[in-house]
């Protein structure tokens, strides 16, 4: 599989909304209030209003369902949706939950992303499939996003 760096995305997540046990698992909603992104072809900031609608399944895997809007430094809006999976050894997940810093190689945190934009300069995003590797930090995750070539 050939890929190349599209961007690094860092989002800021305030305390999440813990909805508890719902029919499909344990639901936690993480609002995203800000952030930044930077790559060879685009850079800018994350607008407030998005979030990650996470669901802890009965098999221990956390499903991620993220929607955010990016604003590039030249004023284009880009809508991102991302579906992901996060799991790992119980002690690693417990350390992450306590806000400790853990090497991302200790757990699985991968997402698949889609983009929408009307800006001609960034229309290439409408036509590609991307995946990311996530690094959970106390303030919010950092995603290294790669375009599948």
């Amino acid at each position, binding site marked *: *599989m050939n*890929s190349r760096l599209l961007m690094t995305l860092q989002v800021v997540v305030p305390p999440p909304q813990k909805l508890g046990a719902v029919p499909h698992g344990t639901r936690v909603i993480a609002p995203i209030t800000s952030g930044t992104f930077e790559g060879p072809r685009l850079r800018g900031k994350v607008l407030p209003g998005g979030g990650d609608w996470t669901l802890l399944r009965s*098999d221990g*895997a956390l499903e991620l369902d993220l929607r955010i809007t990016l604003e590039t430094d030249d004023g284009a809006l880009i809508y991102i949706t991302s*579906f*992901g*999976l996060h*799991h790992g050894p119980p002690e690693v997940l417990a350390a992450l939950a306590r806000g400790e810093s853990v090497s991302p190689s200790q757990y*699985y945190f*991968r*997402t*698949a992303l*889609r983009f929408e934009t009307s800006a001609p300069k960034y*229309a290439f995003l*409408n*036509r*590609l*499939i991307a*995946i990311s*590797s996530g690094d959970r930090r106390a303030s919010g995750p950092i995603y290294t996003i*790669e375009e*599948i070539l």
Partner: protein
Amino acid sequence: MNSRPLMTVRIAAAPSQKLGAVPHGIRSIIPVTGGDFEGRRLRGKVLPGGGDWLLLRSDGVLELDLRVTLETDDHTLIHMTFQGLRHGPPDVIAALGRGEVMDPASYYFRTLPRFETSTEKYAFLNRIITVGVGETRPDGAIHKIDEIL
């Protein structure tokens, strides 16, 4: 991004149902009649009854939305879905439309497969993000699917 081959899925399809222009684009539905899959950790056949709900967007990109059921050689059922994108030079896409076989490197056909199974032996499929490289064939499609590590 590190990845490794998961399997190759060959989909046999019936002639498409051409619904024409709908609000989001031009809709065609391709019934899946069968097929097979093979990888280091799993192999078996594609059951009839699934399909690919295609949408040709106004920007010329074909969106794929597939649902099929796989049956392994040891009789486990696996639900597979994917969303994908296909686009390329107009002459290549036209040749594919005429049923000609084209080099898959001459167009972009990438998918994001997801899996569901209840069987312990194949439960790893519930926990991985995968990417497929597709090849359009006159009687269906071939998808080479990699697991993102």
